[in-house]
């Protein structure tokens, strides 16, 4: 399959049209990097939506984008978690592990506000209904 370059960039890429091409070139050449999500799983879900591509690099690009998206959400949730635990640590006098508690547990309390910033509202019931 021929990878044809998009000659006229779309509206949103006016200022970084060069960067967009560079990005595409870079990622197209980044074949040795394997994202965490296997290609076949990503391809399966894309096929379910109607997107089929014979080029594995595009699949990897989408996998990478999803991974970045996840890591952004996770970082935001980590910030929330740190804010919450740091206020508790300041109150507790004895702390053997140092200034910060090392173990962070991701819970819904941290995740929901993080998702809220991305426009995803996740309202889970507290008990089975």
């Amino acid at each position, binding site marked *: 399959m021929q990878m044809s370059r998009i000659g006229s960039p779309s509206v949103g890429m006016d200022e970084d049209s060069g960067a967009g091409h560079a990005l*595409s070139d870079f990622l197209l050449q980044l074949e040795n990097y394997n994202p965490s999500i296997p290609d076949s799983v990503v391809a399966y879900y894309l096929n379910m*939506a109607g997107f089929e591509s014979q080029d594995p690099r595009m699949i990897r690009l*989408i996998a990478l984008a999803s991974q970045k998206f996840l890591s952004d959400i996770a970082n935001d949730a*980590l910030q929330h978690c740190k804010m919450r635990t740091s206020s508790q640590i300041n109150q507790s006098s004895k702390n053997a592990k140092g200034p910060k508690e*090392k173990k*962070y547990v991701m819970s819904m309390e941290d995740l929901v506000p993080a998702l809220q910033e*991305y426009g995803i509202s996740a309202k889970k019931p507290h008990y089975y209904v």
Partner: protein
Amino acid sequence: MTENTEKPESSCDARRRILNIAVSTVLLETGFESSDRIALETLTEVIQCFFTEVGNSAKSYCELTGRTEPVLGDVMMALINMGISVQGIEQYAARPKRHVIQPPQQASVPRTPAMLSAGSKAKPPPHIPFHLPPLPDPHAYIRTPTHKQPVTEYEAIREKAASQKKDIERALTKFLAKTSETHNLFNTDDNQVYPLIACKPTFPPYLSCLLPTDQVFDFDELEYHFQVANRTEDLPADKKDQSDNEGDNGGDNENSSQPEIIDIPMSSPERLKSGG
């Protein structure tokens, strides 16, 4: 957080589990030690919806321009439309510590071995395309007879019938000699060498020749009549005498007798009349 992906009942369970693993990997990289189950499931759901959305959107952009195969630009448009910055992807790919170790993909489920296969499947003829399924076992469509053609020559059949008849007679006589009374030719007590089937002489010997019998067509029907129709236990006493007198054949008095008495040709000698 290593998880073993076991063989699931449905295929989407495996992919879901793999997504769980991938999400766990990302969380590990971020710095979390553990997470709630419900948070993990939420993030897996998020990522699944992400794939669906990107796929759908990219396909729509692609078809909008009249193409059928999506290109990089379609994917980029879809990502931008969703609000995901494309510059950050490159930086993210080059991050220093990244977990690229993933459990390898499961091998496909082994095909069930061909059971009940008799013989080798025949090669398809050249006019059949190669992508069609192979031919079934040859016994499914080829019929071979299970026995030889029997001999139809007259001489052979006659000979076979004659030998069978001889065998039958020999076998039956041996059987009778073993089970019924035997007659001994020699003057020994126990005779096993040459047993003869004992002949039971009737008295007088010439009786069967003197008594003419009707031609019997069906012995079963005859026996039925003899047993049922000619029962004398239920008849009153006077009719019993009459049935005794009418029991022989050839008598002219039967025409005037009661019609329910059936003529029995075989009668005991006591009932014999002088004219028989």
